[in-house]
């Protein structure tokens, strides 16, 4: 018995050691990003001696400088608007379609749903050239509408919500139907509120996907004042790649809002990813 207890304790110590080392590795890039952001450029590119910490005080004003000189407020605004409209559109269309596929019977259901599944299997890169040409023809290059365009509907979200609706008990709807509610009322008043957790998952997934996307905003919003945080960073790197504190300060500014949101809504984030399992 004594042996087992020591064995358990040794196991625990090994596990903690591995976890701590891994956590350290995961955090190094973040820490280094912040430490570089608050240095002067001379300190950042000094090799002998090599500085881990800033020497002439922590230059938090670097953030303010970057904020102003690169018009971060516009990048934030564009990103936020894109995320907002994509989430609203995706949730709205997917919850309607998900309800129909999950709870209603109609001719052509199988064929239509197989189209949804097929879309999920096709890599999205194949859609990009024609999507770009459409946006360009409609004169939506360098607009928020252009950014939102490919995310108006979602096959993945439809599938997710369909699963959510299928999991609800049957008698709820039957009771409402006897009370004289039509299908629209049943959907709006009874069923939709019950799929809140699936909707939250889809919302988080959509927001993260839009936030992280790089190629689409780079293609449709080439002007610095119309683009998103991701694509804006790519632009900055191209122009000011050797001013390291500036680069790191802008990287911090680009990721900080999502990190704050993540830390506040951690449970929803983790559950959302775990239950939806979408490909990010």
């Amino acid at each position, binding site marked *: 018995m004594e042996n087992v207890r020591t064995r358990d304790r040794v196991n625990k110590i090994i596990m903690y050691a591995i976890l701590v080392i891994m956590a350290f590795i995961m955090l190094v890039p973040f820490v280094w990003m912040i430490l570089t952001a608050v240095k002067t450029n001379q300190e950042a*590119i000094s090799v002998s001696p090599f500085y881990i910490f800033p020497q002439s005080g922590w230059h938090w004003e670097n953030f303010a400088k970057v904020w102003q000189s690169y018009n971060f407020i516009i990048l934030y605004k564009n990103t936020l608007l894109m995320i907002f409209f994509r989430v609203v559109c995706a949730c709205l269309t997917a919850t309607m379609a998900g309800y129909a596929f999950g709870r209603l019977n109609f001719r052509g259901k199988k064929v239509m749903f197989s189209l949804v599944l097929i879309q999920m299997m096709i890599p999205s890169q194949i859609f990009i050239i024609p999507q770009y040409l459409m946006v360009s023809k409609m004169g939506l290059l360098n607009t928020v509408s252009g950014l939102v365009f490919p995310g108006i*509907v979602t*096959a993945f979200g439809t599938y997710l919500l369909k699963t959510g609706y299928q999991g609800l008990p049957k008698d709820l709807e039957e009771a409402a139907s006897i009370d004289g509610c039509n299908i*629209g009322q049943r959907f709006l008043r009874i069923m939709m509120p019950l799929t809140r957790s699936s909707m939250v998952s889809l919302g988080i997934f959509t927001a993260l996907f839009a936030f992280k996307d790089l190629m689409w905003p780079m293609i449709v919003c080439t002007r610095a004042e119309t683009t998103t945080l991701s694509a804006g960073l790519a632009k900055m790197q191209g122009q000011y790649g050797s001013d390291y504190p500036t680069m790191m300060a802008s990287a911090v500014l680009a990721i900080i809002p999502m990190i704050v949101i993540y830390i506040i809504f951690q449970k929803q984030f983790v559950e959302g*990813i*775990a239950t939806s399992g979408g490909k*990010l």
Partner: protein
Amino acid sequence: MKKQLSAAAKNESRWAWAFIAPTMLGLIVLNFYPAINTVYQSFCKTGDFGRGNVFIGVQNYIEAFGASETWHSIWNTIKYALIEVPFGVCIALILAVFLNKKLKGTSAFRTIFFLPMVCAPAAVAMVWKWLYNQQFGLLNNIFHTKIAWISDPKIAWISIGVIGVWSVIGYNMVLFISGLQEIPGDYYEAAEIDGATGIRQFFHITVPLLSPTTFFIVQTRVIGALTVFDLMFMVMDKTNVALQNTQSIVYLFYTYAFTNGDKGYGATLVVILVAFIMLVTVIMQRAEKKFVFYS
């Protein structure tokens, strides 16, 4: 009675079609038409200044398969996947098993490991590029080395793979944890009574019972890795000497279709990529029947 029923069915059908109409319309306009159009364009030469496409048959494909750059990029993409998927999955699995053990502080560890998932890859790649910097970077200065992490063709692909692993561990881990929580505790209790050690429990209970989750993760990660773009684009400059040996096929597609404006040839590359991914998917579906254990 029969008439009434069919009226109800008709009514239901009408509602259903109204509900799916926006999604189906959107999928056709935004996805199905573009997919077909891309395939068509892959047989075309893009006219200058929007003068439309000229049909040239399989010319683009002959050119693409004849270019060593195409084969290089396919091989580079596979190499990237060979690092990101196995390491990303194995490390995540180990971490998930530890975090499932109800140790103290697990939620803090989970928060940290998941952090890269909520960061824009553009920012992540920028930081790693700075860490890898040959002259001023943290890695070379801490270890007193002079390694050209991202411009030496021999190791640049590994360096990029490492960024991929770092980025994806948290996502895989979260999926593993939710898979682990579905394994009934009795299995472990029984094994404990039989005197099986932790490592034996891991290989004889956890691994087989977790195989559906593992398969799902591997499948999504393989497809994700084969379409890698952001990291490569941000880390590898156009002038980097290791570009030929690291650029992925999506990177090559982006260069042709949008930097050089040759949509026809870009479409060809993307069709080749999709065909390749479809092939890999079919192979994985076959493997699923063989290796995955569904209780």
